[in-house]
């Protein structure tokens, strides 16, 4: 009964004080919407790999710094160690390109992988059509995900259909599986692993020294001791073969794969979560909800004098304090319930934008699954309690004889708390502003940094099998165009990850990056020589066993006169080479990492990339000039490899993709900061209106005594600016420490200048002042008589 009475009061209060209710409910709704979105994201991230029923029995084998194995490891371990019930090897791509041909159409299937037939025993990929036992038994069979099947075959039954891969291999579709979401290896199609033997020779399935390309997984029994098995596997492998220098084998549980902290060699084709991101997101989400709760607390306390009489009277009639506390808690649960409903609708509305921002495909439906509705309801209650607990205790503490006499004006304790809470809100907003500004600065710094080579106006093409045989023709043809100045072939272009190789100079062994290039590579990228010479087309003897090192490699080996040094253990035949020149250091990869030591050597294979420099000289360095050049490249492509569709990318764009994570982070933080400030300002607006209302009489008297409007505005704004200043002082060191830690992620970073702090102070002052001034100007220009008539 008391409950019904209280809810009635709560509803009537919401209706009567519309502005105040709006601030409360709107602020909370935004906070909740954001919280729901972030939780959807977090839930999605945390769900990676968990759909596998044998989740806690699956392990990946890793060697030293790499998570990919030669195919032979999976082969020789078969049946050797009783705890290993099943082995699955993957190979991440169909070959040069992931283009499939069906009838006369090309389809790009980016994530087509090869896997052992055991893949369906180990991982949970449910079949829609076909038999998991036999689907990958034969060479050249392939299982498609539902999505892929739809893309190629539409509504036709694909089982038994042929797909042409690389214009050479015919694969038969043997099954359709459900789409694979949230698996750490992206998969659109799975072809039988033994196909690789037919494509590249049977020895490629059993090789132990070469071809570190295969993520390899084991299935263990329900009860297993992973550490013990790890030791067993390691000693078994080392007894049978010499795997390079100091091989260390490790087993990593599927549970830990997605959030693995260290970058591993060979994992660039896999999905990774960043647990730090998730933690930051959760913290920010909680803080934004807290900011909204603070509004609730503050506005309720500010309005306390409006409720004081009621509290007093209820006490006089005989309400106990406990009854009053329950009443006020109930009153705060109601708006938070409303806010939850609006918050959910808002989240649904913002979901597409949010998905774009974090490049995900989250759906709100996952939030309606059990136990989320239950969590929701407890969320309403919990939030109401958090927001309402202090006001409830505060309001119920009024003593009836004082409030009924109308003596209650302002509790000093409550006023202090209110100020502290506003400072808290602004501090969080300021940290977010400083964070956003710093992320932007760092991003800008990285994008504008001198990379040591010229990344502008370079177009890269993927080399396919057909073009591979006509490389020289392509180069000659392209160079005939006056808009094109350079053409070079290489295994990797800047922005891509190079292979690691352990080499030896004299007594010293060290791991360096290796890249196969042709003699035009350095000129194309405008990279200068420091010492010695470049490879030369005139000297075919430079091929395969001559090396151009970068400065970092020279430094790593501590070479005084690098030119002429003999290098052992190279990936070429016969594994020996000689340094003929040194190039200046340049950033092959992003500024996250230091410049790696690199050995470049000249090989005709494996070249995957063509780099084409378009001339900068007038009148070509204009959009039409570039378009003409690309048109020309396309024309030649069509002539030389008509079986492959033309595709290209600009190097500067693909290089900057390495900063996608920071770009996303900055966009997300801008939204976070904006919302946090918005909610904080809503609260400030509400508080100002109450405080100004309370000072109406004072303002009237001051005006009667001759105060001018600006003087009154200054008087009313002074206090708030003081709070914002304090908030800045608190927020700065926190922001500095957090961001300094974040910047440690980058080998090259911008200092956190005083600028961002001044900016944050300026922004918060202006925003707070604008918020406050609406009320204070309104109060200041009002006719003093109106103010005095109140009494």
């Amino acid at each position, binding site marked *: *009964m*008391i409950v019904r*009475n209280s809810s*009635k*009061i709560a509803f*009537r*209060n919401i209706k*009567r004080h519309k502005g105040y209710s709006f601030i409360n409910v709107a602020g909370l709704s935004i906070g909740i919407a954001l919280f729901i979105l972030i939780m959807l994201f977090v839930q999605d991230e945390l769900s990676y790999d968990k759909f596998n029923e044998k989740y806690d029995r699956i392990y990946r084998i890793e060697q030293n710094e790499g998570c990919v194995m030669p195919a032979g490891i999976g082969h020789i371990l078969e049946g050797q160690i009783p705890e290993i019930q099943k082995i699955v090897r993957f190979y991440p791509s169909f070959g040069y390109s992931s283009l499939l041909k069906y009838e006369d159409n090309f389809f790009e299937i980016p994530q087509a992988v090869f896997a052992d037939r055991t893949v369906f025993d180990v991982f949970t990929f449910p079949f829609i059509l076909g038999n998991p036992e036999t689907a990958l038994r034969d060479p050249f069979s392939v299982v498609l995900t539902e999505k892929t099947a739809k893309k190629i075959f539409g509504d036709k039954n694909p089982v038994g259909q042929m797909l042409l891969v690389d214009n050479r291999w015919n694969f038969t579709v043997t099954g359709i599986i459900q789409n694979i979401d949230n698996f750490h290896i992206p998969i659109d199609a799975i072809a039988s692993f033994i196909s690789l033997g037919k494509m590249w020779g049977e020895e490629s399935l059993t090789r132990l020294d070469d071809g570190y390309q295969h993520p390899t997984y084991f299935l263990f029994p329900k009860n297993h001791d992973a550490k013990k098995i790890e030791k067993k596997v390691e000693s078994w492998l080392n007894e049978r073969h010499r795997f390079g220098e100091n091989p260390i084998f490790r087993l990593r549980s599927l549970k830990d794969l997605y959030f693995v902290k260290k970058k591993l060699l060979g994992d660039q084709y896999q999905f990774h979560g960043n647990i730090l991101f998730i933690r930051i997101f959760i913290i920010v989400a909680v803080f934004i909800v807290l900011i909204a709760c603070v509004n609730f607390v503050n506005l309720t306390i500010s309005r306390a004098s409006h409720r004081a*009489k*009621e509290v*007093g*009277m*209820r*006490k*006089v*009639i*005989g*309400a*106990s*304090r*406990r*009854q009053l506390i329950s009443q006020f808690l109930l009153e705060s649960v109601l708006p938070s319930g409303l806010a939850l409903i609006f918050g959910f609708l808002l989240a649904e509305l913002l979901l597409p934008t949010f998905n774009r921002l974090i490049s995900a495909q989250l759906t709100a439906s996952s939030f309606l699954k059990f136990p989320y509705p239950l969590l929701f309801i407890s969320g309403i209650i919990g939030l109401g309690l958090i927001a309402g607990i202090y006001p409830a205790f505060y309001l119920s503490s009024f*003593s*009836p*004889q004082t409030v*009924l*006499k*109308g003596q209650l004006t302002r509790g000093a304790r409550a006023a202090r708390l209110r100020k502290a809470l506003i400072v808290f809100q602004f501090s969080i907003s300021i940290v977010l502003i400083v964070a956003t500004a710093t992320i932007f600065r760092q991003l800008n710094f990285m994008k504008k940094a001198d990379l040591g080579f010229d990344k502008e106006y370079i177009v890269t093409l993927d080399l396919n099998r057909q073009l591979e045989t006509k490389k020289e023709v392509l180069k000659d043809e392209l160079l005939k165009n006056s808009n094109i100045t350079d053409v070079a072939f290489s295994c990797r272009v800047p922005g891509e990850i190079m292979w690691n190789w352990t080499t030896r100079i004299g007594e010293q062994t060290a791991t360096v990056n290796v890249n196969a290039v042709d003699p035009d590579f350095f000129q194309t990228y405008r990279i200068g020589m420091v010492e010695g010479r470049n490879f030369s087309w005139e000297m075919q003897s430079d091929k395969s066993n001559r090396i151009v090192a970068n400065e970092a490699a020279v430094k790593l080996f501590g070479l005084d006169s690098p030119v002429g040094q003999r290098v052992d253990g190279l990936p070429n035949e016969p594994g020996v080479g000689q340094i003929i020149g040194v190039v200046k250091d340049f950033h092959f990869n992003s500024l996250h990492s230091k410049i790696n030591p690199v050995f470049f050597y000249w090989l005709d294979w494996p070249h995957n990339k063509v780099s084409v420099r378009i001339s900068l000289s007038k009148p070509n360095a204009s959009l039409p000039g570039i378009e003409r050049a690309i048109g020309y490249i396309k024309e030649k492509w069509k002539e030389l490899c008509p079986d492959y569709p033309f595709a290209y990318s600009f190097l500067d764009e693909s290089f900057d993709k390495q900063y996608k994570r920071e770009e996303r982070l900055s966009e997300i933080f801008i939204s976070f900061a904006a919302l946090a400030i918005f909610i904080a300002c809503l609260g400030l607006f509400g508080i100002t209106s109450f405080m100004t209302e309370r000072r109406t009489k004072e303002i009237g008297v001051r005006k009667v005594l001759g105060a001018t409007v600006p003087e009154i505005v200054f008087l009313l704004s002074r206090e708030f600016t003081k709070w914002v200043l304090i908030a800045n002082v608190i927020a700065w060191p926190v922001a500095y420490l957090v961001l300094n830690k974040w910047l440690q992620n980058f080998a090259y970073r911008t200092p956190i200048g005083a600028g961002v702090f001044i900016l944050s102070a300026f922004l918060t002052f202006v925003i707070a002042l604008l918020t406050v001034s609406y009320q204070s100007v309104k109060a200041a220009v009002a006719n003093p008589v109106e103010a005095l008539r109140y009494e």
Partner: protein
Amino acid sequence: MEENMIQTKDLKKVYRTEEVETTALNNVNLNVQEGEYVAIMGPSGCGKSTLLNILGMIDKPSAGQYLFLGEEVGHFSERQRAGLRKNNIGFVFQSFNLIDELTVYENVELPLLYLGYSSSERKKRVNDVLEQMEIMARKNHFPQQLSGGQQQRVAVARAIVARPKLILADEPTGNLDSAHGEEVMRIIGELHGAGTTVVMVTHSPAYAEYSHRVIHLFDGHIVSENIQEEFKI
């Protein structure tokens, strides 16, 4: 002899602020018997309301004893006092103190809610008392929609709906014009006639005449007590 409903012994109330100490009540000894009608008079600031608040257990004495129905209540916890209040005492204030967010009916119903009456019993009692106060037609109105006299009738209805033994009235006519004032005094007189004990603070000698006994307070002391030979009903 009739039972003492209220008995105070050397009751003292001191207000302290940072610099000043104000004695609002000084050694007040007062007995009120069951069924009595007592008026308290005195100039502003003499401690009338303070005394009434202590008697109503919405304030605590600084020193001295307060026996309510023979029981010392000075040391009672807030919860015990709330219990005593809701079961025994009805308040009427000068400024009505109705809850703006509740309708007339809901305001009157409130004490019964805190007493845990069943819904049918509440309905009956509230309707009865609204009838008695001749305010039934307004039962779904909010306090702001009523005149001062009507509001005070609602406040009185609220004070008596739980049928308290004691009614404390703090200048019940202070905010009313004389016609409405008379009416409220008549209602209180009727309640007293039905057996309810009444303690009323008033400025008005005319209204004090409705009581058995008038107590004059000055500067925290009881300075005189007049027993009325004949009192108005």
